[in-house]
C-alpha cells in the first residue's frame, strides 16, 4: 500500500518537474520548486530515510524559497527568450532519448525496493548495523555512519559547504561604492514587514521556538533524525525569518558580518581540529575513541563536537548567502 502512495507521489514529482522546465514565468517556477521539495521530502520519508527527509524539509521549506526569491529580485520575472535551431532541437531530443533509454535499461537489472540480497546490503552496511551499538553506543545508525565511520567524507562535505559559501560571497558580496540612498529607497529598504502587525507578532513568537527546535535537532541527532546539517538549516531559517520581519539591517546587527565569517570558518576549523586532536592523542585522524578514557564516551564527545562544527558552518553559510542576496537587491 505504501508502494502505491510512493508511486503516485513520484508521478506528481515528474509532473511538477516538467512544469518547472516548461514554465516561462520564473516566479511560478520558484513556487513549483517549493512543491517539488515538499514532494521529495515525502518520498524520502516513505522510503524510511528520515534523516534525508529532514534535511530536505529544513532546506526546502525554510531557506531555498527565500534564496530563490532573492535571486529573482536581481533578475527579470520572465525567462529570457532564446532561439534554438531545429537541428539543435533534434540533437537535444536524441541525446535525452538515448540517456533515458540507457537509464531504463540499467534499471531493469536493479534489485527491488527493500530487497535484502541487494549488493548494497552485502558490503559494509551489515558491518555498520552490527557495530554501531558496541563501538559507538548510539541508536541512530545514520549519525554513526555520517559522523564516525565515514567522518572523513563528512569533513569533505563541510568543506564543500564552506567553499560554496565563499564562492557565493565572492560573486555577490563584492563591495560597491556606497550610493547615497534617497528617501523612498531607504524607506523600501527598511520597511520589510515591520509595519505588518500580525506577521510580525506571530513571526517574532516563532523565532525562539524554531531556534529551540534547531538546538534539539542539533544535540538529539544521535537518538532521532537530525544532526548538524539539518540543525544548521533550521537555525538559519530562524535568523532569516527575523531578518524578513525586522528588516535586513537589523538582521545584520544581530549577527554582524565578522561573526558570520567567524562561524563559516570556525565550524570547519572545529571539525578539523577534533580530527587533529585525535591524532595528537595517539589515534587516527577523526578516530574519536581516544578523546576519553572510555572509547564510547570518546565517540560521543567527538560526534557532539563535529556535529556542532557542521551546524555552525551551515548556519553561517546560509545566512551569509541570504544577506549577500538581500544587500544586492536593495541597491
Amino acid at each position, binding site marked *: *500500500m*505504501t508502494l502505491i*502512495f510512493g508511486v*503516485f*507521489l513520484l508521478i*506528481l514529482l515528474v*509532473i*511538477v518537474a516538467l*512544469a518547472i522546465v516548461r514554465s516561462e514565468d520564473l*516566479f*511560478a517556477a520558484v*513556487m*513549483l520548486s*517549493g*512543491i517539488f521539495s*515538499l*514532494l521529495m*521530502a*515525502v518520498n524520502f*520519508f*516513505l522510503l524510511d530515510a*528520515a534523516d534525508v*527527509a*529532514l534535511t530536505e*524539509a*529544513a532546506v526546502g*521549506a*525554510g531557506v531555498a*524559497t*527565500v534564496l530563490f*526569491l532573492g535571486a*529573482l*529580485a536581481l533578475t527579470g520575472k520572465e525567462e529570457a527568450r532564446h532561439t534554438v535551431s531545429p537541428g539543435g532541437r533534434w540533437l537535444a531530443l536524441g541525446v535525452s532519448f538515448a540517456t533515458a533509454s540507457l537509464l531504463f535499461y540499467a534499471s531493469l537489472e536493479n534489485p527491488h525496493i527493500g530487497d535484502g540480497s541487494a549488493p548494497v546490503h552485502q558490503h559494509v552496511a551489515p558491518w555498520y548495523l552490527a557495530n554501531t551499538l558496541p563501538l559507538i553506543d548510539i541508536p541512530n545508525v545514520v549519525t554513526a555512519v555520517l559522523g564516525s565511520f565515514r567522518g572523513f567524507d563528512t569533513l569533505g562535505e563541510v568543506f564543500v559547504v564552506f567553499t560554496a559559501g565563499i564562492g557565493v560571497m565572492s560573486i555577490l558580496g563584492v563591495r560597491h561604492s556606497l550610493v547615497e540612498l*534617497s528617501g*523612498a*529607497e531607504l*524607506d*523600501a529598504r527598511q*520597511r*520589510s*514587514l515591520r509595519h505588518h502587525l500580525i*506577521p510580525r507578532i506571530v*513571526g517574532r513568537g*516563532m523565532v525562539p*521556538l*524554531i531556534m529551540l*527546535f534547531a538546538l534539539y*535537532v542539533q544535540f538529539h541527532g544521535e537518538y*532521532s*533524525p*537530525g544532526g548538524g546539517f*539539518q540543525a544548521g538549516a*533550521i537555525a538559519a*531559517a*530562524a535568523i*532569516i*525569518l527575523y531578518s*524578513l520581519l525586522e528588516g535586513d539591517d537589523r538582521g545584520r546587527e544581530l549577527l554582524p558580518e565578522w561573526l558570520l565569517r567567524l562561524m563559516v570558518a570556525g565550524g570547519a576549523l572545529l571539525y578539523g581540529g577534533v580530527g587533529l586532536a585525535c591524532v595528537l592523542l595517539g589515534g587516527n585522524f577523526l578516530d574519536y575513541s581516544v578523546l576519553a578514557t572510555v572509547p564510547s564516551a570518546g565517540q560521543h564527545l567527538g560526534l557532539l563536537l563535529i556535529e556542532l562544527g557542521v551546524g555552525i558552518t551551515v548556519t553561517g553559510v546560509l545566512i551569509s548567502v541570504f544577506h549577500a542576496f538581500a544587500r544586492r*537587491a*536593495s541597491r
Partner: protein
Amino acid sequence: MIFYPVLFALIATMALALARALLGPSLYDRVLAVNMFGTKTVLFLAVTAFMLGRPDFLDLALAYAAINFIGVLAVLQFFQSREIRQRYERQGR
C-alpha cells in the same frame, strides 16, 4: 485501518492543490497552493509516521510546521519591495 482513507483524502487534496499551482492563473493562487501543499505535507508526514509505527519521526512534521510559512513571508516581502521600487521608479521619471 483508519490510516488509508485519511492518506487517500490527503493525497487527493495534494493533487488538487498541485493542479491550482500548475494552472495559476494569478500569482496569489500559486502562493496559496504552495502554502496549502505544505500544510497537507505536514499532515501526510504525521499520519504516515503513526502508520509506520515510528511516532518519533513526527520531528519532520514539526520541522515543516515550524518553518513552512517563512517562504510565504518571503514572497510577501518580495512583492512589497518590488511594488515600492516600481512606484519609486515611476516617480523618478
